[in-house]
């Protein structure tokens, strides 16, 4: 209960769903369009890592592409 309190109820529900989805992998034949996709938990790892990469690249791009709000009005 302490974890749920710290992590938040909604976040804990998402985590619970994530675990269920990982377990579902063992209940049926999950195959993919490519061989790589058929590795264990591949979509889960790919989704998690992609989101982190997008975030990291996005933050890095702030220094290159971000300007003042009135940049074009000057």
């Amino acid at each position: 209960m302490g974890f749920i309190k710290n992590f938040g109820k909604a976040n804990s529900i998402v985590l619970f769903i994530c675990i269920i989805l990982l377990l579902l992998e063992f209940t049926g034949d999950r195959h993919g369009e490519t061989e790589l996709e058929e590795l264990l938990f591949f979509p889960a790892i790919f989704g998690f890592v992609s989101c982190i990469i997008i975030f990291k690249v996005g933050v890095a791009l702030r220094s290159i592409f971000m300007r003042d709000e009135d940049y074009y009005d000057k």
Partner: protein
Amino acid sequence: MISSMPPGLIMFLGSFLIPLFPHFFRQIYMILLIVISAFSLTSGHGTHLVINSMGIDFIIFHSDNLSFPFAVIFHIAAFLTVIYGIHNRDWKENVAITSYAGAAIAALHAGDLFTLFVWWEATALTSVFLILGGKSLRAYRSAIRYIIIQVGSGMLLLSGAIILFHTNNEALFQNFSIDSTSGLLIFLAFGIKAAFPFLNGWLQDSYPEASEVGTVALSAFTTKLAIYALARSFAGVEILILIGALMTFFPIFFAVIENDLRRVLTYSLNNQLGFMVVAVGIGSELAINGAVAHAFAHILYKGLLFMSMGAVLYRVGTCKASELGGLFKHMPVTAICSIVGAISISAFPLFSGFVAKSLIMSSLGYEGLTFIYFMLLFASAGVLHHSGIKIPFFAFFAHESGLKPKEAPLNMIIAMIISALLCILIGVFPSLFYQILPYEVNYQPYDFSHVVSQLQLLTFAAFAFICLWHFKIYPPELNSTVLNSDWFYRKMIPGVFKPVILGIQNLNVVLTNLMLMIFDNFKKFVNNLMFNNKVFDRETGFDTLIVVQIFGLILFILMFMHFN
């Protein structure tokens, strides 16, 4: 009689009578125009109206299995936009919406490039008034840039059509090769409206400047008309696969750092167009079905997302993530509709995005395009990040902004609920949806593998976002401008040419002064020769002048003899 009229024409022509109607009757009239136009779709497939003029066959009304699904969704989009904008008393915007939608629908039924050109330009000229509807200096400037680019696209199309007509004595709207000059010009014309990489600046520049209703209308027609045109003329052109993959890839990062949520949606729109362009590039029956299905579903869920952000803009006056948050308590229906749109665009099972995007992903798998497949898979995680989470989260949850707006007006809520229901219906009954697609579909999106893979991908991507937010790694949204490809013509070209023009002006001044100085000195020199008893002074040097003239004459004769 009505059914033989090209769909969209009645909307285009009828829109000019809109100012004559008072508010409310005006909206009924607009819906009536849409219904009459939709009735023309019952004519069936084939060529229904050809007008010969100046030795050219203008194919005004041609319908087939590709134009039909686009025509259906364009009518639905026009209807939803009218409902969404019932509160809007600005007749100019109503005229623009109806004529713009009519022009786009009529363009779908053009059978030759000259007819297409007319409607292509008509969509540009009518839609610019929607951007002007933003009623700000930024909107005005953006509208000017928009119309220049859109008309430019039309000029490329016309050039291609003329070259083609000159060669073949006809300019049918059909398959072209990009190896020919005409094909390349037409390809570029379509590419501008489809927001290809580096040709996309107008999209993010202009759409967010329109009014809340205008942006909903804009999101539906222009870009999807371009996708339709690409599918008709360049299906299977391999370069489109690469172009589309880049379109899905790069806008993700810009969407992540963008603060204006309507602008985030335009990056997302660009990304979604990429999926469609990839499918057109593959060109197989399954892929073309995927492109059309994705365009159909996309118009609904993207429209829904723009509607929800438009409702926020209408009530709060801003769409900046940095200034929003905690609106769920005050605008719950808008928030729920926005979440449905977000889930749909993220392609969660049981929502429209899933049944449409699966067709494209599977066609990539069947063709063995593994690298592109993973690019699009990565882009799918990106869609969840910027449209699936960022849009509803920063507007309706995140931090408490202190804003306490009223719920959106009833008409907006009705339009959003209809859109949301359509997103769910398409997702729940894909076989019904697939019947409208150009080719027969033997595809089952709901199998164990597809569903579990997609849910794992999306849920873990969402979990990654949750971790970033919960552990305060996600940086706060900042009021800012994100540079895009429009920077080239808004900053770089003026930046380069301004010094050049200033340099030319300065050079002009220097050269003018120099010429004046030379002329002054020459005048002084002549004065010195002619006067003050100098050699050409008539009083003292008349005989000298005669001697000089004789010498000159001899010199002339010698030169004449030498060169002859």
